[in-house]
């Protein structure tokens, strides 16, 4: 009986004797883990830092100058510019009271819109309702990476960036259609269908019109097209192509003469009807960003991109022409009556499409049969 007790006791003593070692082992393991994490972090941070140091210029471009912050500040300026110009055309003053010449009006509006209550309709698909406006803005902002603001100041250049940009832009009406669909309102649905119909009508003439510059430049890269205009701008070689591209881009954005998808007197705000608060702000900005994108593309395709006044930096040249294009965009979009949806489609397919195809053919023949053209383009 005592022997059993001793046995139990001995086991306990053994256990006690082993305890410090056990605790020590645990501490060792934990220390190993911590050191491991520390070493790993050190390596990663070192690696990242080397990456940043090596790519600091690229990062600066992507985030600050021709990148995100520049584009968003430009967007804010453009909204102010549009409202001011519209006000002037309509014999009003436009934004007046917030800041000098109403300059901070947009920040006030943005704060107001963002702080508003978000009302999601009962029949809406909640997840998509929250997700789609952000997706729309991202899809519209990403192609700005391929805009060649200067020979140095550009973010990315692919050999097929033209195709990529149009691929991104083709997603916009799909998002509009989805937004109309998931809003759970008939007006939104009609607006979504109209947006899809607009793109259906305008996209083919638009892409056809961009074929001309691409052929003359011999490149599908936007940078390549801009570089090819060192001696002569394509507007002088392809004026009709510019007209078709401008018209098709206005239709594609869906601003005033062709704003059937968001016609406020017919279908309230089309596919944007049910968006409230910050979601409306995002879709609203996306439309303006799209106008800016098309203006930048037009400057690149037809107005020589960063070429212009020789002693100015390329980016300044680009931005001057960019502002002029924005002015044209806003003026055109505030001085016509709205067309009906069927009239838009008829107009596109009856006039825009044949014209742009004709231009492609003319450009092809010119490249083959006009011997001086190639030299002119190369810069000789």
């Amino acid at each position, binding site marked *: 009986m005592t022997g059993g007790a001793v046995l139990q006791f001995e086991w306990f003593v053994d256990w006690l004797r082993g305890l410090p070692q056990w605790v020590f082992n645990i501490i060792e393991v934990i220390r190993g883990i911590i050191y491991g994490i520390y070493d790993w972090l050190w390596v990663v941070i070192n690696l990242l830092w080397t990456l940043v140091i090596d790519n600091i210029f690229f990062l600066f471009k992507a985030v600050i100058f021709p990148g995100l912050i520049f584009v968003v500040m430009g967007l804010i300026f453009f909204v102010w510019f549009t409202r001011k110009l*519209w006000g002037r*055309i*309509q*014999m*009003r003053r436009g934004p007046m009271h917030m800041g000098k010449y109403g300059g901070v009006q947009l920040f006030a509006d943005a704060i107001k819109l963002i702080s508003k209550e978000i009302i999601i309709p009962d029949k809406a698909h909640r997840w998509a309702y929250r997700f789609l406006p952000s997706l729309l803005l991202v899809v519209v902002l990403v192609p700005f990476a391929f805009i060649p603001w200067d020979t140095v100041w550009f973010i990315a250049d692919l050999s097929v960036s033209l195709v990529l940009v149009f691929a991104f832009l083709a997603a916009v009406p799909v998002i509009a259609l989805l937004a109309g669909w998931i809003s759970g309102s*008939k*007006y939104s649905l*009609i607006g979504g269908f109209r947006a899809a119909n607009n793109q259906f009508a305008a996209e083919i003439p638009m892409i056809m019109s961009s074929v001309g510059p691409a052929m003359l430049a011999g490149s599908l890269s936007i940078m390549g097209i801009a570089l090819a205009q060192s001696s002569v701008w394509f507007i002088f070689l392809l004026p009709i192509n510019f007209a078709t591209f401008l018209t098709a881009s206005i239709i594609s954005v869906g601003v*005033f*003469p062709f*704003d*059937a998808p968001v*016609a*406020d*007197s*017919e*279908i*309230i705000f089309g596919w944007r009807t049910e968006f409230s608060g910050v979601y409306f702000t995002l879709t609203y900005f996306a439309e303006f960003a799209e106008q800016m994108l098309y203006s930048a593309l037009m400057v690149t395709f037809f107005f020589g991109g960063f070429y212009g006044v020789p002693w100015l930096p390329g980016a300044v040249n680009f931005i001057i022409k960019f502002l002029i294009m924005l002015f044209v965009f806003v003026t055109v979009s*505030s*001085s*016509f*009556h*709205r*067309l*009906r*949806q*069927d*009239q838009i489609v008829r107009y596109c397919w009856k006039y825009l499409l044949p014209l742009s195809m004709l231009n492609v053919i003319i450009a092809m023949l010119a490249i083959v049969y006009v011997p001086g053209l190639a030299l002119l383009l190369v810069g000789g």
Partner: protein
Amino acid sequence: MTPDILDETVEVWFGPQHVSAHGWATKLKLVGDFIVECDPHAGYFHRSAEKCLEYRNFRQGSPILERLCMLEAFLAEYPYISAVEQIAGLVVPERAKVLRTIMMEASRIHSYQFWWGQLSAEMGFFAMTLWPWVDREFFLDTFEELTGVRHSPHFSTPGGLRFDFTEKVLAKLEKAIQVLEYNMPKFEDMLMKSPLFRMRTEGVGQYSAKEALRWGLSGPNIKACGIPMDLRKDQPDPNLAYDMVDWEVPILEHPDHPGESDAYDRMVQRFNEVKTSVDIIKQLIPQIPDGPIIDPKARAKANRLPEGEAYGRVEGARGITSLWLKTLEKAQTPYRAKIRGPCFHSYYALKHLVPSARFADFIVIFGSLDPYPGWWDR
């Protein structure tokens, strides 16, 4: 969504929260882009004006009518005053007659100026909306100088006027007409010659004179069909001064579709109406006689009316505006007053006019008839 969507009708409520539907609602049934059925709903503005008139005495009644259509307030108040004057046997002084006529025509011009802008806004050209509204301000200034308010002037009263013209009012009125005449050719160019405007309006909302008569349309809507139906000429009112003026009823005979009118014709017709009104005002201003603007006994006579029935009518900016008044012996208030608003019929006409139109054209058809919700809801 099933593939056979075109076989299914979609029911859409146009209003009352719609941006363009300010105080009215229409139930539309769509098949694809086409409207197959239209059911206009009234009553969102109903303020029981007829019942209210039964509780007001004869000098308090006309402001209620002005509220029905603020754009043509000088015209809208007149049927009631005319009916009271007929029953009371009041004779209006010469000066009051001429001033009344001038202000009624100014009100008509002001109403059409508003309408040009409204129709353009419904077609998405907002700059063209605000340009006529800038000129309209000059007329509003005139009203303000004359009566102290820009809307709801309460200008006429049984037996005469409440406010007299001064030199300042005349100067402002002449200024307003000068601005109008300077700018109107530009607006005509902007609208009538604009290909986009023609694309949107030509052939839209087309009806024949016969249909329009059946629906009870009047005013510019029927004059655009070529029928010179105009109360100013047809039924000369002894208390108005249209007989002092040499003028013709403006009508429109379209060469392609005589006897029919579409939205474009009605727009052209309203420009012609403005030209006629300007002509009338210009002829009347030199003819303003001196004298009192109200019969001194009119107030006492309008206090208690004898038994009678009268039908006061005026050619409003939107059509025949009339009021049927019945009084009992020694009445202080009307026994029954029935207001006939012109837009009661043009809003009803949508029911027949809209089916088979495109959805986007609905608001153009509505706008081209120039309806004002106050007139049908009362």
